[in-house]
């Protein structure tokens, strides 16, 4: 019997689910292997009977926690889909702002109606079985995780940084071009896609398991960033992870 699959979203841009829709012909092949029972973005039907739940987006409100816990209860396997769900992602930038005053400015005296707390990855609320990192997720990486789960295999996630893939792709290092990147501490698996396109690694896949953060901050400073800018580079995506370390 085909495993039943459901997609859910929390605070995020839904760009990861879009990558799933963007699988094009591979999507038809995938539909031969799984039965999608819930995917609000593309289908009206919904069922709470599913085996694998893909969850996109960060948890940013107390009220989201109950929904997450329900998903955890219903699913055998929970997969964090994309940076916001897997590491907190770009949402955690707001964790450095004074949220109360932000909310008051936005909503005035109705601020308390809109509860909101520090943005966090879903594994801060529920146990997660597998991760598809990236902002957005890489379609091949998503398929890799899905195929692994279908084969009953724990998806292999690189524990090495983006530099590995960047070197294999024979890019000119960002630092050699007078730019700054966080590839040396960021988890690989994206095939260094941003650097391949002529830019830098922004860190969207989060820190590797054992990053040498101090050494890389020293590198950033050695190559010309101020201490604040070096910290800022880490904050773009690593906010939640760094706060936890």
């Amino acid at each position, binding site marked *: 019997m085909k495993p039943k699959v459901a997609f859910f979203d*929390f*605070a*995020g*841009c*839904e*760009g990861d*689910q*879009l*990558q799933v*829709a*963007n699988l*094009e*012909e591979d*999507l*038809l092949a995938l*539909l031969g292997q799984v039965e*999608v029972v819930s995917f*609000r*973005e*593309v*289908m*009206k*039907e*919904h069922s709470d009977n599913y085996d694998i739940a893909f969850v996109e*987006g960060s948890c*940013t*409100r107390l009220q989201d926690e109950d929904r997450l816990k329900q998903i955890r209860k219903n699913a055998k396997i929970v997969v964090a889909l994309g940076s916001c769900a897997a590491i907190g*992602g*770009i*949402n955690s*930038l*707001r964790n450095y*702002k004074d*949220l109360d005053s*932000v909310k008051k*400015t*936005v*909503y*005035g005296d*109705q601020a308390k*109606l*809109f509860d*909101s707390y520090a*943005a966090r990855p879903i594994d801060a609320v529920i146990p997660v079985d597998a991760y598809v990192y990236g*902002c*957005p997720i890489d379609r091949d990486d998503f398929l890799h995780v899905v195929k692994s789960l279908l084969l009953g295999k724990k998806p292999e996630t690189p524990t090495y940084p983006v530099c590995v893939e960047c070197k294999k792709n024979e890019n*000119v290092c960002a630092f050699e*071009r*007078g*730019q700054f990147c966080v590839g040396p501490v960021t988890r690989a698996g994206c095939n260094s*896609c*941003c650097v*391949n*396109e*002529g*830019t830098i690694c*922004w860190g969207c896949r989060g820190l590797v398991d054992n990053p040498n953060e101090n050494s890389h901050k020293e590198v950033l400073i050695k190559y010309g960033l101020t201490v604040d*800018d070096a910290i*800022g580079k880490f904050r*773009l995506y690593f906010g939640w992870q760094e706060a936890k370390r």
Partner: protein
Amino acid sequence: MSKEINVHHITRVEGHGNINVVINNGTVERCEWAIPEAPRFFEAMVVGRSWNELHHITSRICGICSIGHTLASLKATEAALGIKISEQDLKLRKLALHAENMQSHLLHVGFLVLPDLMAVGSVIPLASSHPAEVKTVLKLHRIANEMSNLLCGRTTHPQRLIPGGFSKIPTAKELAALRSKLMDAVPSLEAVAKLIKGLAGKLPDFKRETEFIALTDPNEYALYDGRIASSDTGSAPAREYLAYTNEYIVPHSTAKWAKHARESYMVGALARVNINYSKLSPMAKETAEMFGLAPVCHNPFMNNIAQLVETVHSVEDSIKLINELEADGLVPQPDYNKPEIKVKAGSGVGAVEVPRGILFHDYTYNDKGICTRANCVIPTNQNHGNISLDMKALVPQIIEKSKSEIELTLEMLVRAYDPCISCSTHVVKVNGN
């Protein structure tokens, strides 16, 4: 007889929206369009970040229109820092925008709207009942994605688009290959148009007069640039956008709403077609005629058709742009291109027509190029008021229908706007400081 319609988290739209209608003894007691989406405070998040990161961050406002957000962001930054881009880069950016327009419209019309017209819950059963049609839509969608890959280095959250131009551009060969794909797409597009034509009778015949707002340009069908035009009041430069958008807070909605000359206005494909009809490409006009879509059309359900018309326009205009680039001779640029940029203090507004309508990004930078203030106005925010008023006008007209029929019609109405709800809340505004 009383009916209560509660659509919690409407499906086949981007983001979370609720419809709540209470009908008691033939009168509408409540008719509410509510947005419970979690707010993300982007405008607060970008404060303190550098000019060369803003486009990367604000791209994350929305996965579906990330190219549009990136371009609006770059335009705002470039306006603030006084950066000019080359004629070639301008054309390449227009191609990138077309790619997103096609990708988004095809996804909406082909995957999200089509199931309503064919009375199914999603495109998934269509894959087996109508494999040829689904494959045709998939093929067109794939071409749009390949185009976006080629121009932006990705389909979502572009990489190649940077302040001052592009980090990497396609080769002349790659552009020529893209052109032949686009030319091959034309018959498929015609097939999709025919398919929709056969089903268009299912779109409700509903009219409510409203105001339309879109960018306009005397020389082309305005998407990348232009003046703000209203069907009610005339036009103004983009930097005066605040006079048009006038956002306000509504209870039970984490998104802000907007109004201009009337209680609400509409943006998006229909607004653009209504305002800029004469600038559509020849084939796009033919398509519009096929559906009897002519300005000024006040049926919001026709937004779906306007999207189809625009898809045709984007294909045709892209071919034209590639021809022009080829005729001018594509100038190669260095690997890992990074335009030289002098940082200075300043403010700038970027306005771009994205799939769901007119989008504004407005930034202020200090002399170190650090963002001190940001404001983004999202198409869907501008449409929320119009959706709500449409709903209020539509419900009494269909009040005798069954609950499920009312529910479906209201869902179709919301869907017709192709709302991008997460966008519209992701940028809840921080006024002042």
